[in-house]
């Protein structure tokens, strides 16, 4: 039986955040939602790292903060998380700026559509035929000519009155 202390709950929460972020990254189609999921996953990972330094009934690791001789939580993971937060912010800022440029160029942020357009552009730049995709299973080969449609009323001969 798992002992449901506050610590266990927060551990489960941190791993849950990482899982939510991972699921969102994999399942979402919209690029901005994928970025948000990434942010959630990063928060979860940072929380998990801080938790590794947790000691019960300890104060913040600042000299002179708590009563003299009190135990402090481990400061090393907190330093690591500061760095990780900054790295995460930098990467997200770069991603958002690229996202804006992609939207201006392609007009959409749906990942499936973007991948299809990127594939078409790469093939066009290389001068090869685009590979088949879900939208065009036969590739970009020309379809056979379809005979012109004439509605039924035009096909019936007018009665001789």
């Amino acid at each position, binding site marked *: 039986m798992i002992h449901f202390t506050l610590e266990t709950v927060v551990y489960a929460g941190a*791993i849950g955040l*990482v899982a939510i*972020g*991972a699921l969102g*990254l994999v399942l979402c189609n919209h*690029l901005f939602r*994928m*970025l948000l999921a*990434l942010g959630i*996953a*990063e928060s*979860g*990972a*940072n929380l*998990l*790292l801080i*938790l*590794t330094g947790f000691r019960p009934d300890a104060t913040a690791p600042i000299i002179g903060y708590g009563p003299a001789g009190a135990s402090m939580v481990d400061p*090393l*993971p907190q330093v*690591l998380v500061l*760095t*990780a937060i900054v*790295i*995460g912010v*930098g*990467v997200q800022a*770069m*991603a958002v700026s*690229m*996202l804006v*440029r*992609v939207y201006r*160029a*392609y007009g959409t942020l749906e990942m499936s559509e*973007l*991948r299809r*357009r*990127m594939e078409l*552009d*790469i*093939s066009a*730049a*290389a*001068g*090869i*035929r685009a590979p088949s995709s879900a939208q065009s299973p036969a590739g970009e080969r020309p379809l056979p000519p379809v005979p012109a449609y004439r509605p039924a009323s035009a096909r019936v001969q007018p009665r001789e009155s």
Partner: protein
Amino acid sequence: MNQILLPVVLPLLAAFLMQPLAQVSRLAARALGPLVLVLSALITARIWLGFGEAPFTVAIGGFAPPLGIVFYADHLALLFALTVPLFTLLFWPGLGDQDSDPGHCARRDALVLLLVAAATGLALSGDLFNIYIFYELAAVASFGLASLTGTPRALVATLRYLLISAFGSVLSLVGISFLYMATGTLNLAQLAQLAPQTLQGPLGLASFALMLIGFGVKAELFPLNTWVPDVYATAPARVAALLAGLVSKLAVLVVVRLLVLVFQQPEASQLLLSLGVLGVLTGELAAWRARDFARMIAFSSIGQLGIVFIAFSIDGDTGLLAGIAVALHHLIVKSALFGLAARWNGSLEALTGAARRSPLAAGLFVLFALSLIGVPPLPGFWAKILVLVGLAQGGSTLQLFALVSVLLVTAVEASYLFRVAVRLYGQSDSPPAPPARWDLGAATLLGAALIGVTLATAPVADHLRNVARQAGNAALYVDTVFPKTVAQKD
């Protein structure tokens, strides 16, 4: 010996000085990058030539490990620290460049210098979180470089790379937290001391798997390599050469250090072996189906790195030697091929008759293709035979399956590489443009290096055996970082 820090610090400093300098003097800004790289190469070469047999460490800021961060320099670290500035000079994106926008040039050069600083730091660092930070620095620099052309397809490819890479680094942070929970330290030497007691269970294996996913994104590990063909097809060719050739090897080096020092359990090697086999099979079969030159060699790069992982999963010094040999061979050959791909970036049909316009480039391609396939006496043959012999000596089912895969994949490689080679020497009315002078020069230099290694196989093999023996010696690592005082020695 503190000078070993300069190849990390000088490019960082130069990268941040690049923008202000570009406002003052365009010529100085264009010259600063290559100048700093030449200086780094000279410093590292001097240390390498004066290197005895014992590795040495440098405690950053005077803080002794395990509280402080330590840089560890042995043969392997110095070898890679030397190749970083040399290869970046060879494939400097500003060479022969007619780009007249000084701001763009300054930004590009700053990004390359950041990549160089991060790569050198990855080779030398002895602290796990320091490695993580250098890895992230290399990742951000490579995002900027991959999207350098600014075309929408490059941006989408870079965004996919960014998402996969950032997700990998989240997972590696989780792995680092597990490691810290189990051992209470992040210094590689102290982890090596504590690993036999604390990391043998499922927590250790989970931590290794998570960090493998994190550092495997750059190392093109299956299944995290879906970003590779698109990024290498849309990035400028020299940037692709640097990323595929140089940065991937340094990511592999990080994984190897973790494997040798911290995670010595057989499950870790088996995980690496299975992912390597999957990478080899998927990469080479995809290369066989590719229809344009850049993506063909990108997929081939995935396959070759799969062979590198298979090699490093073999126990003992034979595995390390085989892995280092394949990695160095791939570094030389793949960078040169990407250099040639700068002008030959169309479809494979468009390459018909290229030998007429540029016989040297076509000859170099055939040389590199033969070495990749593994035709004796070229170095590729020796590297592959080391892998195959190591796998055969291992003898477990998975290793024999890996042996069969590598042989199968060699046949596939021969098929698609010879297809291109035959096309190069075909007849055509409109052959493609010959590669630019700088790219051809770099490829010729690397081809000459390949032939040089072929002629001097025995001394090179002895030196690499030395490198592998020193790199695999975890006890030596721990003793160098934490030297036993006279009183402790019995």
